[in-house]
């Protein structure tokens, strides 16, 4: 019986074949409880982002099982993965990845519309979320007119739009100064907690380690610390 919101057991990921095969993850067990704020740390190339990609249903594991909120996503058909992502997961990317031609509000609305929300409902929720991240006055600005920190706050609002139960963040503070990084991570944690969302953040940034409920360390494709739950 699986009791964790995020439950990954014996997960492996190998790129390439034969002599060129490279194991990015080896027999990894990873768990996160509902509402938990977990940081995943480790050196470059240790497999953090590969784990995040597998948890985010954008990459298939070579071995093991992944269950999100009781659903075995590692055995889901390829065609079912987009629906699983819409239903379960919000993303915050290292480079914010906002749509350059859409305003801050429209970027958040887009996530809601992709999740099937009507236009009016999406507009209301987008406005509310932007207000919560302190960008109500920047709602109509294009990403190019926002600072790095502001863009990442829009990305946080977008990731939480539609109340996905799981939010995955990949180095969200990598390109931010200490103050902006702390602000973005604090917002992510606060808003996720309000909504009961589980958050997994991949980061090198030791300045935000104190915000994690738990820190999982990965080295050479294996969990070396904090993986037990």
């Amino acid at each position, binding site marked *: 019986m699986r009791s964790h919101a995020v439950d990954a057991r014996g997960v492996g990921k190998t790129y390439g074949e034969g002599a060129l095969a490279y194991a990015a993850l080896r027999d990894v067990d990873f768990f996160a409880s509902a509402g938990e704020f977990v940081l995943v740390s480790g050196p470059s190339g240790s497999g953090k*982002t590969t784990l*995040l*990609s597998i948890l*985010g249903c*954008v*990459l298939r594991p070579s071995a093991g099982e992944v269950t999100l909120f009781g659903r075995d996503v590692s055995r889901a058909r390829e065609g079912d993965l*987009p*629906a699983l*992502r*819409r*239903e379960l997961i919000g*993303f915050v*990317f*290292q*480079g914010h*990845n906002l*749509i*350059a*031609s*859409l305003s801050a509000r*429209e970027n958040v*609305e*887009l*996530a809601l*519309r*992709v*999740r*099937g*929300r*009507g*236009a009016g409902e*999406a507009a209301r929720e987008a406005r509310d979320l932007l207000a919560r991240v302190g960008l109500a006055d920047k709602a109509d600005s294009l990403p190019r007119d926002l600072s790095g920190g502001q863009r990442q706050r829009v990305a946080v609002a977008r990731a939480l739009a539609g109340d996905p139960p799981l939010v995955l963040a*990949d180095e969200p503070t990598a390109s931010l100064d200490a103050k902006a990084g702390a602000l973005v991570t604090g917002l992510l944690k606060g808003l996720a907690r309000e909504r009961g969302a589980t958050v997994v953040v991949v980061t090198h940034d030791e300045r935000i380690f104190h915000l994690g409920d738990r820190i999982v360390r990965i080295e050479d494709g294996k969990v070396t610390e904090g993986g037990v739950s």
Partner: protein
Amino acid sequence: MSGPFARWGAMAKVGVRMMFHDRLKLAGTLFGVVFATLLADQQLGVLLGLLSKNLMFVDHAGADLWVLPAGAQTFQPGKPISLSALTATEVVPGVAWAEPLIYAGGTLSLPGGGSEPVSVVGTRAPRYKGGPWNLVAGSAEALARPDAMIFEDSEREKLGGLNLGSVRELNGRRVVAAGFTWGLLPFGPSYSFAGYDLARELARFDADRTSYVLAGVAPGADPAAVKRAVQARNPDLLVLTRAEFKAKIVTYIFASTGIGASFGASTGFGLLVGLVIVSLSMFSAVVDNVREFGTLKAMGATTGDLAALLLTQSVVYALVGTLIGLGVVSHVADAIRSPKLALVLPWQLYAGTFGVMLLLCSLASSLALVRLRRVEPAMVFR
């Protein structure tokens, strides 16, 4: 709107915003559509213009039925038929009227020496079926005057500076300019109208010969049945409805001149170049925005959703490009319009152009979609 429709609506909006965000690429893609529209419609407009020149006489003659020499392929001077065909046609029940028409070649002697060919059309009073139209001076009734003829206004200089009352020699006989038409220039020499007897004399036809017999079907009569009856009365001749005669002329032109292949090749070339430009532009736009498309996939957009995005872009490109292209081609048509050359641009061509451009842009987007299908959502983490 919710569920998948909300997604498609959102994708449509993203597609349009992406288009207008990159103005340079937008201009490049629209150039492809405008180029294809311009070249294709210019070529088709000229082709339709040339066809209309060859069909205008049949269109304006006012006849429902044409009695022609057997084996006639088009409207041109040829071997005369017996005038008995006129009587044979007139007596058929359902025929409201029948008129003979003379159509023959002529040579007009110029005052300073030399000569110019004209097409002599002889029409009978008082109906003047097959008579002059688009008159800019004089009237059809003027043909009742002795030696009177009506010439084409745009050919006046060519015909030796013709004016009302100018006297010329046509096929060795004295004629007088009694009026002018505008724009009646077929492929061959311009139409020059005369009264029936004068035309017969100019054509050197015997009194019992004529070129064609035109007939009108009485209101309420079945044109097909009347045609069959007229044909039965004229077994050695060919009887065609107006539509049939026009179709025969078009077929003859395409078969005998190669004009269809020539214009078709130019039109096809324009469409092909447009397809290549639009395909490359849309493909390049996908490559430039591949990270955004990866993000959309990571957020849960399906390949079908992204196809909706590209399809929306195709519709907008087709619509905007066609409108601009048609606007340009309409201005070109106005600028070059003359009796000798006129682009004919019917509404069906406009509607068809949009349809073809929509198809072209959709085809072009399919190349971009092939690239989009290969976009892995995991790329957003690299």
